[in-house]
């Protein structure tokens, strides 16, 4: 065996070692970034039941909680994002007034997902409708298609974002049902913040869950039920 060969072996060993040292932290970071990689289960369908009788006119607690949780400015100008808003409605024939929160209804057949050219709008296995901020090209077709005006377009550069909820200028966003909280076993910020417990969150598919029992026992409606989108958010007392 010549001397040159040993040198080469030594060189290869050192290179392999150096490469491993260089890559390892990156791999670890990726692992950390992905966090718990357990996939969402299609056995679950997350949803909400909103009791309009308990929702008070003028109360904005759910909206404030959402803004804080998701790092929204809370401004309500025409170009500002509003993931959840309070709507005051009045029955034209009877004059009866109601107040209720409106946000992404997390449809089973979401029109936004149908029209999105790049599959950036998608529905997770557990029924949560989300926007992949890396894929969204900002065409706003989903905003045209949504029957609930649930989506906002980021019109300006953003500062001080919540690390759990990345957002991006030039992309579309909406209520994520606080997916980052759900994945940690918590309930959405709006449901937690509501003092009158008007927002009941849970698994619509689990027959023993509080929400499923309630939906079986009280009259609830889907908004624009005529469109047959099978929304995950239901309203009681409407």
């Amino acid at each position, binding site marked *: 065996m010549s001397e040159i060969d040993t040198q080469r072996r030594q060189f290869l060993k050192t290179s392999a070692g150096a490469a491993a040292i260089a890559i390892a932290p990156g791999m670890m970071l990726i692992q950390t970034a992905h966090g718990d990689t357990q996939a969402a289960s299609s056995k679950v369908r997350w949803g909400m039941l909103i009791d309009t009788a308990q929702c008070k006119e003028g109360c904005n607690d759910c909206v404030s909680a959402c803004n804080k949780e998701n790092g929204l400015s809370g401004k*309500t100008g*025409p*170009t*500002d*994002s*509003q993931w959840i*808003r*309070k*709507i*005051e*409605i*009045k*029955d*034209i*024939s009877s004059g009866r007034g109601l107040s209720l929160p*409106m946000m992404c209804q997390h449809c089973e057949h979401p*029109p936004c*997902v*149908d*029209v*999105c*050219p*790049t*599959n*950036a709008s998608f529905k997770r296995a557990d029924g949560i409708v989300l926007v992949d901020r890396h*894929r*969204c*090209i*900002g*065409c*706003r*077709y989903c*905003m*045209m*298609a*949504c*029957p*609930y*005006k649930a*989506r*906002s*377009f*980021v*019109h*300006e*550069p953003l500062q001080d974002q919540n690390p759990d909820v990345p957002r*991006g*200028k*030039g*992309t*579309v966003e909406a209520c994520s049902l606080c997916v980052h909280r759900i994945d940690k076993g918590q309930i959405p910020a709006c449901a937690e913040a509501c003092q009158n417990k008007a927002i009941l969150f849970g698994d619509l598919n689990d027959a023993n869950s509080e929400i499923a029992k309630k939906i079986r026992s009280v009259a609830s409606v889907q*908004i*624009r039920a005529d*469109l047959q989108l099978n929304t995950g958010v239901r309203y009681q007392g409407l």
Partner: protein
Amino acid sequence: MADLSALRSKNRLYYVLLALGGLVVLGGAYAVHMMEHYGHVISGMNNQIVWGMPHVFAIFLIVAASGVLNVASIGSVFGKAMYKARAPLASLLSIAMLSGGLAVLMLDLGRPDRLVVAATNYNLTSVFAWNVVLYSGMFSLVVVYLWTMMERRMNPFNKAAGLAVFVWRFVLTTGTGLIFAFLTARQAYGSALLPPMFIVLSFAWGLAVFHVVQLAIYTWNEKALDPAIMERKKKLLGVFVVGSLYMVATYHMTNLYFAHQTGFERFILLDGGVYPNLFWWGYIVLGNLLPLLLIFVPALSGNKSVLAASLLVILGGFALLYVFIIGGQAYPLNIFPGYEASSSFADGQISAYVPSLYEFLLGFGGLAIAFIITTVSVRVLNFMPQDKPYISD
């Protein structure tokens, strides 16, 4: 020598025109840069009016790009010699307007830098994704079609290419109409009438653009267009204008018939401020009635009348699209039928929209791209219609 100086001044004029077009394109590029830097907040668009002035320009250009090919189809598919002589120019205009329109559409995106994402991720249920295929396919097909016309050895394939373009552009304009037809939740859209309406509108707008360019080219080359040819093509424009007026009227009449749509129609046709004005004065009077007078009143015959009629049809097209796209979004979405609604997110309110300068710069930038492509191509290649001494059909 006198001849030569005339040639020189024309040469100079060509470069001046090119420079002017280039300046307008630069203006568009500046608008794109600003919207990229500051975000769409500097446009007039917002979370209620999500598609604005750029979309009016882009959709006009794309629809006209499909309609202008009518001239080519009547020649290649139906074998009319007079139109066949004009097929190359029509194809060129189609490519030019498609380029301009697509540029505006792409550059208005929130993330135009992600074009690769749009090209590599197709959602098969999305009309937008279909249109990515339809637009790029149309572009390639028309290039091939031009090749079969301008390269002698390719002539045998001309008929087949012409037929393919004929079919493709119908599908393409159907796709453009479907963008709106599939929006079931919005009062203004969600109608199966929209694809055929867009097809008929494309005939009128495309032919109007063709007339303007053809007259410009003949004037530039100091040739007089045979009045018999002008007469026939002028009448064709008249027929298309009447046809498109019929489609638009049908669309509004069907809406008026549905009780739940009367509120929207009232807004667009009667008390919506700028929208009824643009509809009645811009589209109906300037864009239809006046052109029809210019076309069908015998005392008004002549190239100038045709030019004026064509320009008015184009203007009317912009007015109609403004009413359709922006007026359609300004009217509140009916989330709670039977209820009055109000909120911090403009529920139950008419949304305000004032287009910003940047949107106009971007739109005119698209027009300028089409203008430059046409001007350069007409200069370096032979797109001048070559009529036979005797036209049998």
